[in-house]
């Protein structure tokens, strides 16, 4: 396999192609809309859907090659491509992957076709623009995971903001205006502070090397020179931008609104991929660039405390949500609290666990939102109280929802368990108390999800609208959509070894780098020798 990919120089062109392909797709859609006009005829909608689907499928197929062509063990960036962009300001178009970024890129490319399929019939008006925005969003997200240049990272970080804002705003629910504006402002505050921090880094590099240079590797070398005055504020700016995106505890109130009001594909992408940008940001930028500050006892305990609060708080509040989407949104706050706990516990197992939770949360929450979308299309309500007894009228849906709920709870044998177990067992040696408190969320998670599943599937089938659902179970499209996710849930639960091995090298390198910086900082403080 490896030889084949080297033969066609796969690593040389794949990443830029992955970025550009969706943009081309968007242009094709726009051109198609202009030439045939967007008369709401069924044909126009079908055309736009199929264009979007083919582009996403092509993107997914192309990206699968990365699984073999990326050699995760080597320290160098894989499939790296560097093009001059703005030489005067030291900004380059540099992209590359390591083990962690590889998994997130694959998660994105594989989820996008499902998101498109998910909104096959639920999006009725202005489908051309909808799918064009989805494709631009893909480029933005992939760009964030691949960027090796701080400015490119920032630009891609912002590129994904507008399409998601419009998707929530135009095709969302009743309170979409408030929700989309809140989502935009929340993310923007964080990212603009990050912009100041990025420029500050560029200027520090300029002062050290003479020319401003925003490449990630030079920033890493800078970090090795030891803490620079003012680095604390830069770290805080980065951390805030990513904390808003994760979302960590105090900055999470945009998530429930954005999820509830977004259309199905919107909330699938928001939950499955966009939340991971926050954690990816911490793993790639905030912690490695400022290891001493991130691992300083005070800072570290603040982040750990917020993560654990997020876990327990998210679970508790999810317990009392009447709206199923809001419940899943708060459960995402809880799950991503695990990821943050894993990152800041800073052991190899915890880091691997964090990355595993990122991927499995993407799969299970993505599937949950797709399922919610499916019953919303049939019943047009998200309130749990309106449902009941669906298992007897929609058996296929019942099986799928049960499996996905179990994966979200983290029952062993599903992907949810592997990640959470690794985070807890990995963070216990360094943070015993935090791990134990986090483990209590295992109970609350079972409580809120099973209670929700019961109110939908099991209780007596009394309401006539639910009885009318008999014979309107999941159709072939929806089954085809869920099949890969259910397979992934079981496969990652039973045999997660390949995924763990892909991320192991990058995770242990990160932990060593941060630990060595932390120890040298400790010695410096205790020894007093600068």
């Amino acid at each position, binding site marked *: 396999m490896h030889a084949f990919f080297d033969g066609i120089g796969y690593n040389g062109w794949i990443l830029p192609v992955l970025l550009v392909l969706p943009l081309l797709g968007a242009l094709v859609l726009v051109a198609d809309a202009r030439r045939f006009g967007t008369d709401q005829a069924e044909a126009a909608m079908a055309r736009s859907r199929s264009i979007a689907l083919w582009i996403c499928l092509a993107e997914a197929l192309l990206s699968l090659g990365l699984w073999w062509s990326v050699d995760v063990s080597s320290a160098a960036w894989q499939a790296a491509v560097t093009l001059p962009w703005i030489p005067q300001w030291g900004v380059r178009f540099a992209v590359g992957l390591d083990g962690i970024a590889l998994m997130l890129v694959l998660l994105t490319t594989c989820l996008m076709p499902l998101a498109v399929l998910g909104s096959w019939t639920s999006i009725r008006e202005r489908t051309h623009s909808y799918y064009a925005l989805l494709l631009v969003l893909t480029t933005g997200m992939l760009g964030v995971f691949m960027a090796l240049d701080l400015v490119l990272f920032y630009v891609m970080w912002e590129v994904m903001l507008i399409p998601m804002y419009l998707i929530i705003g135009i095709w969302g629910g009743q309170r979409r205006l408030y929700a989309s504006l809140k989502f935009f402002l929340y993310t923007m505050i964080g990212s603009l502070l990050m912009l100041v921090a990025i420029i500050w880094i560029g200027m520090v590099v300029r002062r050290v090397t003479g020319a401003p240079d925003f490449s990630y590797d030079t920033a890493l070398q800078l970090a090795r020179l030891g803490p620079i005055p*003012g680095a604390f504020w830069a770290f805080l700016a980065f951390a805030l931008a990513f904390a808003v995106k994760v979302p960590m505890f105090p900055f999470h109130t945009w998530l429930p609104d954005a999820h509830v009001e977004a259309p199905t594909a919107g909330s699938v992408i928001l939950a499955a991929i966009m939340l991971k940008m926050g954690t990816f940001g911490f793993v790639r930028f905030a912690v490695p660039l400022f290891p001493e500050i991130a691992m300083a006892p005070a800072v570290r305990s603040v982040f750990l405390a917020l993560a654990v609060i997020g876990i327990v708080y998210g679970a508790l509040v999810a317990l009392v949500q009447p709206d199923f989407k809001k419940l899943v949104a708060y459960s995402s706050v809880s799950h991503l609290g695990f990821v943050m706990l894993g990152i800041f516990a800073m052991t190899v197992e915890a880091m691997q666990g964090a990355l595993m939770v990122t991927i499995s949360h993407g799969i299970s929450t993505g599937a949950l939102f797709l399922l919610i979308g499916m019953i919303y299309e049939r019943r047009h309500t998200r309130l749990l109280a309106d449902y009941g007894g669906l298992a007897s009228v929609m058996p296929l849906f019942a099986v799928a929802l049960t499996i996905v709920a179990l994966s979200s709870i983290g029952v062993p044998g599903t992907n949810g368990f592997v990640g959470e177990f690794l985070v807890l067992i990995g963070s216990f040696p360094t943070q015993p108390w935090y791990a134990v408190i986090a483990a209590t969320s295992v109970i609350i998670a079972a409580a809120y999800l099973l209670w929700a599943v019961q109110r939908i599937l099991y209780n007596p089938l009394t309401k006539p609208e639910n009885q009318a659902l008999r014979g309107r179970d999941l159709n072939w499209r929806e089954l085809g959509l869920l099949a890969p996710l259910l397979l992934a849930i079981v496969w990652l639960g039973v045999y997660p070894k390949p995924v763990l091995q892909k991320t192991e090298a990058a995770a242990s390198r990160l932990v060593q780098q941060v630990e060595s910086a932390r120890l040298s900082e400790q010695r410096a403080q205790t020894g007093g020798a600068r």
Partner: protein
Amino acid sequence: MTYDLSQPAALMAALLPDLLLMGGAMALALLAAWRPASDAHQRLVGQGTLVVLATSLVSVILAALRGGEATAGVIAVDGFRWAVDAVILLAAMGTVALNIEQQPRDGIRHAESHVLVGLAASGMMVLAAARDLMVIFLGIEIMSVAIYALVGLNRRSARSAEASLKYFLLGAFATGFLLYGIALIYGATGQTQLGSISAAIARHALALDPMLMVGIGLLIIGFGFKVAAVPFHMWAPDVYDGATTPIAGFMAAGVKAAAFATLLRILYEAFYLVGLWIEPLAWVAVVTMIVGNLVALSQRDIKRMLAYSGIVHTGYLLVAAVAATDLASTVFTFYMLGYTLATLGAFAIVGVVQRDGEGGAPLAAYAGLWSTRPWLAVGMSVFLLAFLGFPVFGGLGFFGKWYLLSAAIDAPGRLVVLSIIVVLTSVISAGYYLPVIRAMFMEPRAEGATSPAPTGALTRVVLIVSAGLILVCGLLPSSLATIALRNGFAPHAIPDEVRATGAGLLR
């Protein structure tokens, strides 16, 4: 080659583009008076003005390519001047193009408006070139008087008459301050040319001379009014609201470019030894950004909102001025180009969406614009996001703000506090740009709301050029960055101990 300004011929050669424009404008004034006012006539005169402006732009570009500099004298010949001239001429051409198609819709038939735009542009070019207080005063007056008249263009609406009255009275009042400042500076140093003023300050160690201080203060007040910095901005919203849309655009872009160019030249060439003006200017910048943004939040009319957005951008440019490094002038030209393009585009769309004869542009008129005129909505979003400084979709706007922030952070004074204020206030600005985008994309079209009139040929050209440049340069700004870098004027480095006296906010 060097222009020996003492020779009249060399002076004329140095002022070639300005003279071309002024001569052309005079000729057109005659042509305008030649035939009775009618639509066809004003269109002809308008096209004539465009030709004149184009020739002047060509001569500016040729002069820039030829390079060359001038001996000490009344005017400056350097890349900065040519760059600012290009921006001014671009703004003027855009305004005339929009005006040609907007005037019939507002029922204005007299052709002199285009001539006035030409004259105002020539005044601005004089300002950009001036290196002598007297020439600066002349340039400001040529520009202002022409614009007083332009604001009152729509004779049949009381709103534009009131706007021109306000602009005239307050303008004259502020010019009074400016003039008194010039007098005091002349009194303190005995010189009027910027170079000799700085020499006099160095010779007589006048850095802390009270008379000079008051003079510089008054100068800042005068220019503060012209660029609509906050304590002196009260006129801007009403005048933008009253004036016809293209003229409002012209004021937002052209007047700001010229006034700022002169302010930079005065501060860096004449008063680089005086550290005291950095602190007040920084405070003016901060107040401008904060008050401008906050008041803009409560605006319901798009033109008034764009007026406040103009004020906020003045605040950002003041931050660049306060940075006072060699980057400051390049940042200014780079930022100004992006800002001008976005302003022209935005005001063009406001004009198109505006119903004939009505002055205001209520937000409700934009509701659901995307469903009827999708490309207008997309265009407006690009311009608004450029104002906001959003990457890729706002294109050049982002790199303008990026360059501004890197100049501020890189400045010896390390203006991190100022850049954080820039960043936080631009978040507030999202609070009033986004509702427009939201109205266009997310709100249903109000029933009975007529679809905007089809855009004229020239307006479409202006829209495509401005949106195109913003997006293309937004993706690949390197070529533009090199032009800006080459055409900045290197201000005398402000000695650190001088900068320290003005430390104040800058820590």
